[in-house]
């Protein structure tokens, strides 16, 4: 019952975000600030993880191709499929639930604890719109992060494979071009669009409705990470079931 009431409150929050809008001049500044923090600020860690995980996927695939009859271009093929279909859109999103989600929950939660949200409300500001809407818009650029992750994941795989001596450059490139289905890219970006909305709203919900003090801000960040990850994994399953089967 309590969980149902929380879900209900989440959807009421979503409705309120699109209620009374904040002045565009102020909103524009908030959106740019959030793009800087949430998108540009995440590029470094996403690039680092994608490059090395792409490399590890290629090495693992190469080490498991023991049968000499299996062509070496399968390494490139497996790396491309793993990175584009799952690693970049889904697992980077789970990592972002930790990085961006915790930031959103703790920043809004701290504003709640220090009565800054109450101060905004007393002024007659729609705090849902002021605090959460800029994050939704900023994270609409999240597919750019995933695009970078896909690119660097495949590059990482190529470098590990070629310079590790597991296959030749031409074999790897042949592999990443083999049986390419463009819809897989579309599928990955559809997932990403849903995940970006989840990444903006669930952590905001946990920050906005938290009660207590500094300790509870930490707890809210952890709970927010857990729920954001759970929702991302469930959505991933549902979207895959609907689009790929």
């Amino acid at each position, binding site marked *: 019952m309590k969980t149902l009431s929380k879900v209900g409150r989440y959807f009421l929050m979503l409705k309120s975000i699109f209620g*009374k809008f*904040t*002045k565009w*001049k*102020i909103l524009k500044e908030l959106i740019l600030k959030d793009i800087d923090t949430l998108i540009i600020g995440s590029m470094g860690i996403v690039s680092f993880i994608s490059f090395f995980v792409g490399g590890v996927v290629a090495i693992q695939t190469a080490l498991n191709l023991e049968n000499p009859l299996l062509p070496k271009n399968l390494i490139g093929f497996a790396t491309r499929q793993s990175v584009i279909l799952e690693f970049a859109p889904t697992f980077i999103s789970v990592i972002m639930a930790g990085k961006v989600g915790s930031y959103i929950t703790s920043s809004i939660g701290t504003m709640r604890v*220090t*009565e*800054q949200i*109450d*101060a905004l*409300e*007393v*002024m*007659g*500001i729609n705090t849902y719109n002021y605090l959460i809407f800029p994050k939704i818009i900023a994270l609409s650029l999240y597919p750019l992060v995933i695009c970078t992750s896909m690119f660097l994941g495949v590059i990482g795989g190529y470098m590990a494979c070629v310079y590790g001596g597991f296959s030749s450059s031409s074999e790897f490139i042949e592999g990443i071009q083999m049986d390419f289905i463009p819809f897989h890219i579309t599928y990955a970006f559809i997932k990403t669009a849903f995940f970006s909305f989840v990444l903006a709203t669930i952590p905001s919900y946990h920050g906005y409705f938290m009660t207590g003090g500094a300790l509870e801000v930490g707890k809210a960040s952890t709970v927010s990470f857990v729920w954001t990850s759970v929702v991302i994994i469930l959505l991933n399953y549902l979207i895959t079931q609907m689009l790929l089967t």
Partner: protein
Amino acid sequence: MIEVKNIIKSFDGIEVLKGISSVFEKGKTNLIIGQSGSGKTVFLKCLLGLLEADSGKIFFEGKGLEKMSVKERSVLRQEMGMVFQGSALFDSMTVEENIMFPMQMFTKKDDDEIRERANLVIKRVNLINANSKYPDEISGGMKKRVAIARSIVMNPKYLFCDEPNSGLDPKTAILIDNLIQEITAEYNITTVINTHDMNSVMEIGEKIVFLKDGLKSWEGTKEEIFNTDNEAVTNFVYSSDLFKKVREVYLKV
């Protein structure tokens, strides 16, 4: 003027406010006092509209809050200023930006006009060389001054303060109390202050409402508080030896 009639508010079946009625007059500093847990903050939040009372009526200049449209409530909110216990300054903004913020949100004035008005208010609350500082770079007393400046920058009709001098040294606390009283008279606003600081009561208590267990136990002025025979008030106000002696001397005179 704010009139409150029979306000009741419960949380999870527990009545925190059990029917409070009072009138807070314009141009006066109205103090709500009482022990921790007596319902002061909940009462103030009901007046501010941050909490919806279960029953009862609140009138602002004779107009009932519950009968106001969304637009009228929004206008009313812009006529309110609030000084929070912890100041509630936006920590991503400088002192000047904090004070300019309400005007940027709700007026069509250009930045130069807004800055001019903000600096006028900054001068009024005696903030010196703090415009470009962030809230974590200034003292507690200065934070309160910024909060007061932010709350009066829009020329409010109503000023609410929740424990405005908590965490301040006695000298700064008196300065803040006097500043609030001066501003109340100067701008002719209705000021409601939540406090359990007895110095504030004696210093600026033009009207005092004493809450006990969610009920209004007593109301009067700072002069009347010396003569009251209400046991709850005397136990609360004269709980320290210093104030007991002050009362004895006052009554002798």
